[in-house]
């Protein structure tokens, strides 16, 4: 444990008998700095104290961050391994649990080949752990089937950035430059609720006269004060961006010198957006012409602008197109690689950036190397000490793993740090797939909805019980500190993987005693790759408030601003995309007349498995709801508080109505943080982006029905008490195909 506590120049309140441990929030990609208060004698966690000196959040926290420490010693923590016998979970020792895992993994691999065992990872873990998940799947289990929950989060942003800029680093500029920005274009990103601590930087710029443009079907808190709110129909971002690109061209807002010198394909792009007149753009997007014009002029005239987007544009079947087009707006204006301007995606998960770079993705190896590149395979095999021929081939994306289960190719799964029984689209299909697994292991620290399907549950420890690093949404690598010893018999994920590797006879490849040893190996594994961490040390992170990758040597300062001289493509030039507009996989028609979009509320994180257990957060937001415009509501006779049945081609659910004019009249919104009968993902469309394999969470067609006032609402128990049989089994008709209007296309 490190003795670095608080910066000497910053005044904090330290209570007698307590000490402060400097770390970061466990939740979103902001990775806000914070101190955790710990009792000096007992080591018990006492609370939180702001960390005023951390430059990204300056002590600020959202309510999730304020209460994050309450997860650490929460009474719901899983404290021992659990084995399911006769449908009931029973406590077990580590030895017993590992025996069962070894026996089943070996049996299944013997009978069905190595690939029959799969790994599903997550990116709310440290870089050390995320890196190890890839190595664990490929070296310990020897399977090609590995993917992770970032597929539902960052994959479209990654795809779009790789296509246009050549390197996928979420932000091309550091957040500390935001206060000097002149215009923020915020597309499909509810910053106030999903990354609240960013707002302080935006307001600071606004105080100096910065303009804000918001593109969102809802009047999100930031849209309230925006100069223009482009209230577009869900799923029409590409049209809006093409209209604006055309507008920039027509009004001579293109930075021609920059484009000539640094971009390829400009003429083709120009030709491809020529048809997107203001009239057509307005017709497709549903946004008034004057608003598009105003946004175009503001963005076009601004000398320093930042394009910010998030899941709203990415979680679509054309997420990659949307990202490439919005990024191109910044390129045409010559904004990327300069001071206080650029483009950034708001990373959803804590380590969504670092976790996607180092080999949890089906086709990637550490350092953002490609598994299809023989040189990369050779280098990484060398670091791992295996023969390159042993390296498994690329597998399939997260949602497609469920197809492989249905097809019988995947028969066992080890799920870590993720809860796809709530977060995946078309849940009835996912639940059915979990039931079809021959053997299912889940590591988690709270009993998630996915755990309930497991044969063995392994108690992982929380973020505060291990050391390591994460990479925040800027690309800044930061340090997570151990606050206390692991509770009960819980173990850090890396130790769990190590123990299973030992049982699989591959222990020699996992000789780690501390996370620092993993970090040192990881640095070497990333060396020379696009995401090069080899020059970053834990000490440097402490001394420099984090280090930005790429950082290829210890005397390299790190890279806060990307692409200053060249882009990450082969010839160093950015690729402007040519996109053919496609509508969303599903759109409103007579039978399903309303558009459904989903998202977050400020009080919950992802599937709510942590935040729903926190007193303050669950009091503030107990159940999902559906946000409806009063005009739409009145055609159904709905008032706030009425119960509504929502139904799509895949499933249905009952929620309470909340009326507000802060949403489009043809669109309803439901947050996704709840499981089982309360999961909106029972309804969402698994129509995948052809490149990123991102499902279309943000758009599907729904019909609504008002229900009698006495209809009971479901309330899910959060934890299955030990020894009780697992209460929930979906009994649904299962739609197995991805829905694209006018034609049924099978998911594979």
């Amino acid at each position, binding site marked *: 444990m490190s003795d670095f506590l608080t910066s000497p120049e910053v*005044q*904090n*309140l330290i*209570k007698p008998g307590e000490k402060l441990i400097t770390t970061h929030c466990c939740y979103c990609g902001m990775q806000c700095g914070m101190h955790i208060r710990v009792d000096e004698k007992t080591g018990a966690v006492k*609370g*939180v104290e*702001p960390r*005023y000196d951390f430059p990204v*959040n300056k*002590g*600020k*926290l*959202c*309510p999730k*961050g*304020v*209460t994050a420490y309450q997860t650490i010693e929460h009474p719901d923590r899983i404290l021992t391994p659990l084995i399911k016998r006769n449908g009931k979970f029973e406590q077990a020792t580590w030895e017993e649990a590992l025996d069962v895992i070894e026996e089943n993994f070996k049996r299944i691999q013997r009978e069905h080949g190595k690939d029959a065992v799969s790994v599903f990872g997550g990116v709310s873990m440290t870089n050390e752990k995320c890196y190890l998940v890839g190595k664990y799947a490929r070296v310990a289990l020897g399977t090609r089937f590995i993917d992770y929950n970032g597929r539902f989060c960052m994959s479209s942003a990654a795809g779009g950035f790789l296509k246009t800029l050549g390197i996928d680093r979420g932000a091309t500029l550091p957040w500390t430059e935001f206060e000097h920005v002149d215009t923020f274009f915020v597309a499909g990103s509810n910053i*106030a*609720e999903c990354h*609240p*601590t*960013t*707002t*302080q930087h935006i*307001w*600071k710029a606004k*105080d100096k*006269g910065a303009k804000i443009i918001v593109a969102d079907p809802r*009047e*999100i*808190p*930031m849209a*309230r*004060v925006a100069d223009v709110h482009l209230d577009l129909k869900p799923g029409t971002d590409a049209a809006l961006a093409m209209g604006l690109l055309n507008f920039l061209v027509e009004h001579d807002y293109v930075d021609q010198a920059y484009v000539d010198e640094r971009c390829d394909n400009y003429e083709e792009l120009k030709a491809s957006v020529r048809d997107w007149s203001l009239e057509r753009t307005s017709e497709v997007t549903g946004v008034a012409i004057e608003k598009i014009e105003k946004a175009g002029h503001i963005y076009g005239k601004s000398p320093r602008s930042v394009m910010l987007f998030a899941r709203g544009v990415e979680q679509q079947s054309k997420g990659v197109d949307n990202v490439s087009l919005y990024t191109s707006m910044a390129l045409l204006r010559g904004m990327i690689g300069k001071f206080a301007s650029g483009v950034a995606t708001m990373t959803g998960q804590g380590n969504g950036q670092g976790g996607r770079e180092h080999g949890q993705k089906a086709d990637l190896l550490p350092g953002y190397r490609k598994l299809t590149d023989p040189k990369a395979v050779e280098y990484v095999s060398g670091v791992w000490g295996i023969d390159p021929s042993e390296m498994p081939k690329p597998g399939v994306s997260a949602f497609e793993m469920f197809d492989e289960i249905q097809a019988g190719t995947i028969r066992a799964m080890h799920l870590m740090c993720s809860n796809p029984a709530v977060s995946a689209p078309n849940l009835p299909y996912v639940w059915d797939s979990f039931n079809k697994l021959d053997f299912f292991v889940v590591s988690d620290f709270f009993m998630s909805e996915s755990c309930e399907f497991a044969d063995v549950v392994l108690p992982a420890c929380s973020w505060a019980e291990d050391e390591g690093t994460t990479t925040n949404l800027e690309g800044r690598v930061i340090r997570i500190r151990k606050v206390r010893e692991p509770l009960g018999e819980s173990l850090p994920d890396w130790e769990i993987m190590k123990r299973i590797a030992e049982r699989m006879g591959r222990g020699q490849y996992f000789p780690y005693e501390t996370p620092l040893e993993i970090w040192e190996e990881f640095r070497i594994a990333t060396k020379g790759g696009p995401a090069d961490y080899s020059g970053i040390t834990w000490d440097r992170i402490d001394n420099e408030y984090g280090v930005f990758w790429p950082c290829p040597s210890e005397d390299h300062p790190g890279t806060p601003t990307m692409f200053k001289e060249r882009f990450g493509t082969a010839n160093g030039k950015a690729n402007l995309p040519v996109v053919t507009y496609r509508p969303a996989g599903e759109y409103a028609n007579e039978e399903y007349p309303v558009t459904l979009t989903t998202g977050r509320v*400020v*009080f919950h994180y992802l599937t709510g498995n942590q935040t729903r257990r926190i007193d*303050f*957060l669950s009091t*503030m937001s107990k159940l999902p709801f559906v946000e409806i415009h*009063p005009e739409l509501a009145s055609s159904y006779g709905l008032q*706030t508080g009425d119960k509504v049945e929502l139904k799509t081609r895949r499933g249905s659910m009952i929620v309470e109505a*909340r*009326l*507000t*004019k*802060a949403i489009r009249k043809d669109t309803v919104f439901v947050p996704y943080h709840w499981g089982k009968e309360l999961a909106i993902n029972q309804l969402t469309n698994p129509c995948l982006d052809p490149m990123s394999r991102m499902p279309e969470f943000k758009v599907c067609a729904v019909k609504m029905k008002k229900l009698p006032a006495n209809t009971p609402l479901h309330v899910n128990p959060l934890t299955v008490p030990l020894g009780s049989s697992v209460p929930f089994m979906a009994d649904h008709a299962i739609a197995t195909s991805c829905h694209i209007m006018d034609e049924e296309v099978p998911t594979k």
Partner: protein
Amino acid sequence: MNKVMYLEFERCIGCRACQAACRECGDHDGLERNYVDYIDFSESRQTFPMICMQCKNPACAQVCPANAIQITPEGVVLSASEEKCIGCRNCTFACPFGIPKFDFEKNKMYKCDMCYDRSKHDIAPMCASVCPSDAIRFIDHDEMMQLRRQRVQMNMIEGKKPSQDDKWNYVPEFFGVYSD
């Protein structure tokens, strides 16, 4: 302490971090003393935070028959002292901002005290520390005056002029509440 709490309602994003953080202040027994509410959710998502104004002539203290509400030398209006509070709840009715709350278990009033254990050392209260959008700030008196002037300047630069209907959007340079 020459610092003030500076509120900018239109910045509030309704995250309620200030409320969560209020519970975390060491002397607050896990009870929040501020509140956040929607202006009218059916119209817009605008919310506002409310904390104690630390009035110069606090109505809460004036109506207290037991003299239980003390004012510190810095001017912070504290929660009722446990020994003196008789649980009459006069203060909860007197405060125009709805700040004093009543703990029915302990039969005692509690209220926002600007996290006195922090602010007396010039450390920001919890709500102002965490508010992610700077809707609540703990700043020097001079900085506050500067900010108020800046508002007027920005309005002039942007050519905005108050009219009879929206004059409340314009913060006058000197509002009269604060004085040196």
